[in-house]
């Protein structure tokens, strides 16, 4: 193959934070009215964010390439642009082949339609011609193991059958290029393993794969080459081990994280500035592990004295599951007043039994009646690092959210004279 299968030439994508353009027709009319009267338009200072900035790379046919980068670095935006879900703001990409992503599994399935009708509809949405689906239809149905129910509306399917059928269609699409975003992959653990397995299969069959993951082990084993994206820019393309090392170094070199100013809310009494994560040994460059304690240190600028501060935290898994929420009022704690000036609030958590994954924390500084002084919604991110918890292998979100020690005891229930004791 002489020509690369994917070429990106300084792709850029800008998002206007908050709102895109005017929110309502009225606002647009106001702007128009101001222009007509020759006045300067009212302030529409929507802050901008370059999710991608001048990203260029080439990928040859048959390559399996990892995409590395911290959350919000622009990895998902890159996949969205390459799969044409959204358009870049500037730049150009050339793709020579059919693109599919595992995000699309089951897209367009309609509950009222039969399995057969849905296979055709879903296939056509993914870009297959009817003749092509005709050809593969039997294979798809066999793969999904739903022969008996193929003419039943899918709303009567069990969720397992539903997923199997959806996956079967996607698996028979035979794209030349497969885009996989692991964080966004839906479904249960078995299904996600199937996706990963499918990916391996696809890459072995000589197709091109772009793989976004936080699982460095997976990236290193599956992808010989990687692209490292940092703050929307392409920070490096090259052999995966090298880039993974750089990525890990960058993420450990971070000191305090700034809180995005547009995400911090404030009533004018105080304002959150930034935060640091310290593991149980007080180290900042090592992510905490499961079953360890750690500290979140939040820096806040207080403008007016807060007599009865009350701290409230909410932690969510990056897939959205609510992990825990707690506040000082409910704990019966009375916190010392906060005089004006900068303070660091150390929130000590733990030992925390969360499994390795990314977590997002919400922090409120409020009064006991619930009036909020300053707060950030899901803006404090921390990662629970990989550790061989059960002693055999690394665990990630596919194994759930929390760690519980489990032990087993098996006793024969033979019809012996001994009564079997059942534990309460």
């Amino acid at each position, binding site marked *: 193959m002489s020509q690369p299968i994917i070429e990106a030439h300084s792709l850029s994508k800008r998002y206007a934070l908050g709102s895109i353009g005017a929110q309502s027709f009225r606002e647009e009319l106001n702007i128009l009215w101001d222009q007509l009267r020759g006045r300067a338009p009212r302030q529409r200072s929507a802050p901008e964010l370059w999710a991608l900035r001048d990203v260029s790379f080439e990928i040859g046919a048959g390559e399996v390439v990892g995409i590395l980068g911290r959350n919000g670095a622009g990895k998902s935006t890159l996949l969205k642009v390459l799969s044409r879900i959204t358009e870049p703001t500037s730049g150009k990409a050339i793709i020579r082949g059919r693109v599919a992503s595992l995000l699309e599994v089951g897209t367009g399935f309609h509950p009222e339609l039969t399995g057969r009708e849905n296979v055709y509809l879903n296939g056509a949405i993914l870009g297959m011609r009817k003749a092509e689906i005709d050809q593969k239809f039997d294979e798809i149905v066999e793969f999904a193991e739903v022969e008996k129910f193929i003419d039943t509306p899918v709303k009567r399917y069990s969720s397992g059958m539903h997923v199997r059928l959806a996956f079967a269609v996607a698996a028979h699409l*035979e794209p030349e290029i497969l885009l996989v975003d692991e964080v966004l992959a839906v479904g249960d653990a078995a299904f996600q393993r199937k996706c990963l397995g499918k990916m391996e299969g696809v890459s072995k069959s000589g197709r091109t794969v772009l793989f976004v993951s936080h699982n460095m082990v997976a990236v290193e084993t599956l992808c010989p080459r990687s692209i490292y994206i940092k703050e929307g820019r392409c920070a490096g393309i090259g052999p995966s081990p090298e880039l993974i090392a750089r990525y890990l170094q960058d993420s450990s070199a971070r000191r305090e994280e700034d809180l995005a100013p547009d995400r911090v809310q404030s009533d004018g009494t105080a304002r959150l500035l930034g935060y640091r994560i310290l593991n149980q040994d007080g180290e900042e460059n090592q992510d905490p592990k499961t079953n360890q304690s750690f500290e979140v240190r939040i820096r806040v600028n207080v403008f007016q004295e807060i007599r009865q501060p009350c701290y409230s935290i909410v932690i969510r898994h990056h897939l959205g599951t609510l992990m825990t929420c707690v506040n000082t009022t409910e704990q019966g704690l009375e916190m010392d007043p906060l005089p004006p000036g900068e303070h660091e609030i150390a929130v000590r958590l733990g030992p925390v039994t969360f499994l390795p994954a990314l977590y997002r924390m919400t922090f409120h500084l409020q009064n006991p009646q619930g009036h909020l002084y300053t707060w950030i919604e899901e803006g404090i991110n921390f990662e629970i690092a990989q550790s061989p918890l059960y002693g055999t292998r690394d665990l990630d979100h596919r194994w759930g959210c929390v760690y519980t020690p489990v032990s087993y005891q098996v006793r024969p229930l033979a019809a012996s004279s001994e009564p079997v004791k059942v534990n309460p």
Partner: protein
Amino acid sequence: MIQPSSATVPPPREIIIQPSGWAGLDGRELWDYRDLVLLLVRRDFVSKFKQTVLGPVWFLLQPLLMTVVFTVIFQKVAKISTDGLPGPIFYFSGMVMWGYFAQNLSTATTIFTTNAYLFTKVYFPRLIVPIATSLSNLIAFAIQFVFYFAFFFYYELFTPASEVLAIRPTALLLPLALLHLVLLSLGVSLWMSALTAKYRDFSHLMAFLTQIWMYLTPVVMPISIFPPKWQWIPLINPMTALVEWFRYSFCGRGTMDPLCIGLSLVITLVLLVSGVAFYQRTARTFVDTV
């Protein structure tokens, strides 16, 4: 997994991704997705009537009930002229063309919101959705059109109104008129769906707008009822030509004004071309706003 061999599969088309500004209608790509259009039409039809008792009978019931209401209110109570036609014939004939148009307008406002789950996940030419919608609305049109003849023959055979009723040779223009109707409806729908995606205000405005538009079209009131000074209003309305063509061809009353038809064609083309451009432009970055 079998690797498609390059000998049997034609080399895939180069996809070029770049900001496309105002231009951008890829006819070939649209054609490649023609199967999807048909499957979406089928989905619309099936899903609309699953779990309804009457099923497609609703297509008939709606205009029938409207006809009854119009006959009572406009003919019997308000005593508004029906151009010498029996009331039900006059109203139903207007409803056949107008009904299709109005149905398209009401679905247009929800195109982006109801398909957001598709648009955010997979790429296909976004124009496919409104095209499929306007085609699936043709099913209702066809049923109503056939039913209209039941009305027609009843009055032709069993009432003295048979003297005024006639089917004229212009009825043969049906395919052209239908194409005109579909393109006009599509043009307006594209505008409305793009506007609604940008400003949700239009979803509230739409029902009201459709009502006003109907009264400015000779659906319930003949053109002759407008004072001479205001006759130009129904005439510049692109739907008038179509409704009047139908009444002229299938009832034997009404006017075929070449100026009105020509104007309607021009307006249709302008709305369609600008509608496609506006819709495409909106669709390209719509997912960034949801």
